[in-house]
């Protein structure tokens, strides 16, 4: 933990694209002596769809609440468009939140829910009506304006919560697992819609989720959090294809982790084959490492020239419609999963049964070598 003095920053223009919409400057948050968030540094650019991704208890919601003003950082500063807002209450910050529970006002109609923020700001009534109407159209709630939230479905309530926040045209919209309560089909649909709406309104979205698919689908950039720290921050492709830590590799979808000894540009599995991975600067010769490779990066046929190929024995075949997963034993007790697409081009003779010996090919670039 590094104690920091609050940075004094001259307020910059909110429209300046070089000034981050959100900056977290060495932010920490302690609850009863334990750290929920540790020394967090983040810059979120204007107009960006930014996701905070991690398992529950990783500090992502606490981070969001500190941006919104619902939690005070123990240390560090929160800056919105260059302005230090660390000491400001939620109602003085130009951000709005879509809460996980939606937190709709049940005694007010849909239109009054959406107009709540504008009314607080003293916007003239005709303008409120106009902006609320436009927002109801944007989130496709036409004809629902006078309904009470309780009479709406989960998806509709979610749209009301979104409209209620967006209508205020905040600099940043904070979304706390807004899709978590929806069923899978509706969630997929809302993911696409949310992304479209974000592009349309051009507002910076900070999106908290524990669902890596959701983060990958929607975000411009993803920060993978664990234990109150950011493990890795980058584009969805970065964090998925090039995980920088064991945690990120494991959290971003299924990944094979194989232990071995690194020597001469290969990882040697005890009692099994040696897997060439190319030179790895920073990994000491003879050190024990974990090799990580995603199941869909393992080839079982049609190898490319120069590709390392090793032998394994099929132990299990798991057919799941569009894909089949093979569990393949490389050495006693060392099993990897390989995912094959069941496309039209996949040949029937390339399907294997348990007990068969197969060849596995892979691209060393897809291997992640993690030192202990």
């Amino acid at each position, binding site marked *: 933990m590094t104690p920091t003095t609050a940075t004094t920053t001259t307020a910059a223009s909110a429209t300046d694209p070089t000034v981050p919409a959100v900056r977290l400057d060495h932010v920490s948050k302690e609850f009863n002596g334990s750290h929920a968030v540790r020394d967090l540094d983040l810059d979120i650019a204007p107009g960006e769809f930014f996701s905070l991704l991690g398992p529950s208890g990783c500090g992502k919601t606490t981070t969001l609440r500190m941006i919104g003003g619902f939690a005070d950082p123990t240390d560090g500063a929160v800056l919105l468009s260059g302005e230090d807002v660390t000491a400001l209450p939620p109602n003085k910050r130009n951000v709005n*939140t879509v809460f996980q529970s939606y937190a709709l006002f049940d005694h007010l109609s849909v239109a009054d829910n959406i107009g709540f923020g504008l009314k607080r700001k003293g916007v003239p009534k005709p303008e409120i009506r106009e902006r609320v109407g436009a927002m109801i159209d944007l989130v496709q709630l036409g004809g629902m304006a006078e309904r009470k939230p309780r009479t709406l479905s989960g998806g509709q309530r979610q749209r009301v919560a979104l409209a209620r926040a967006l209508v205020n045209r905040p600099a940043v919209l904070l979304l706390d697992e807004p899709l978590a309560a929806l069923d899978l089909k509706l969630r997929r649909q809302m993911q696409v819609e949310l992304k479209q709406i974000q592009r349309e309104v051009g507002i910076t979205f900070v999106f908290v989720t524990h669902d890596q698919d959701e983060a990958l689908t929607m975000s411009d950039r993803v920060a993978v959090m664990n234990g109150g720290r950011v493990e890795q921050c980058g584009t969805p492709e970065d964090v998925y294809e090039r995980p920088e830590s064991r945690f990120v590799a494991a959290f971003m979808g299924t990944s094979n982790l194989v232990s071995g000894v690194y020597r001469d540009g290969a990882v040697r599995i005890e009692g099994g084959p040696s897997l060439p991975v190319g030179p790895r600067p920073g990994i000491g010769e003879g050190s024990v490492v974990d090799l990580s490779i995603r199941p869909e990066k393992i080839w079982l046929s049609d190898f490319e020239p120069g590709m390392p190929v090793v032998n394994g024995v099929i132990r299990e075949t798991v057919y799941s419609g569009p894909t089949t997963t093979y569990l393949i034993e490389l050495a006693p007790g060392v099993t990897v999963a390989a995912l094959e697409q069941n496309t039209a081009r996949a040949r029937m003779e390339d399907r294997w049964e348990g007990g068969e010996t197969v060849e596995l090919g892979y691209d060393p670039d897809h291997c992640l070598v993690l030192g202990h």
Partner: protein
Amino acid sequence: MNPTAPAPLRARRRRDQRRRPVFAIAVTVVFFVLLYLPIAMVVLFSFNAQKSLTVFKGFSLRWYEAFFHDNVLLGSLGMSLEVSLVAMVGSVVLGVALALGLVRNKGRLGTYAGLIMMVPLITPEIVTGVASLLLFKGLGITLNSGTVMIAEITFSISYVTVILRSRVAALNPEVEEAAMDLGATRWQALRLVTLPALLPAILASAVLIFALVFDDFVLAYFTTGVDPQPLAVRIYSAIRFGVEPTINAVGTMMLAGSITLIGLALAIPRLFGRRGGLDLISGE
């Protein structure tokens, strides 16, 4: 045993047990007769044409008429209404505030305050009455309708708090945060979002307190001045000098009023179309 169980259930029960629970039914009947017979007598004799309290001699509204011409009783009725109204408003305001404080203060203070809050509910009312009297006398305060109001408010806060506390605990804290997120101050969030959400429970507890205070005798007896006296105290004083059937008429009207109010307290949550008020019957 539930004699009003739906038909299929009753049928199944009969098949299972082969005989009706005669003893249970008898006990239930005796219980209700003993409970309501005296009250039924009061109602019946309030319509008696004669002054007799033992023989019914035909229907008449003369005792109701007599009541509305009795200025002392009318004065007492006015005072009781006034005391009930003030006690209702006072205890609801304080009780709601206490409920909010108890639920949101998770520390030691909240826990202890919550326990102390329950004490008036288990203290015998006569103890509270005597204590109030001694306090007022000790402070040299003249007893009048004001002292009754203060005593009744003190006694009623706990009821409001008990009713409201579970409702406050059931509120989603994110809703108040959402109001603040949308530009409301803490106070505006309370006024615009939290209190409307609690409204059914607040109204229900208000009606209950009104009925409790209006009927209350013990506290009123110890803390009232001489003239006027609350209706319940007035009736008690009158009975000591021989029972007039007017009292039956007053009793019947108080009963009707109380039943209406309690009915209202139970109906309010349903009128709002949601659970939110008293659950006296289901005990949830």
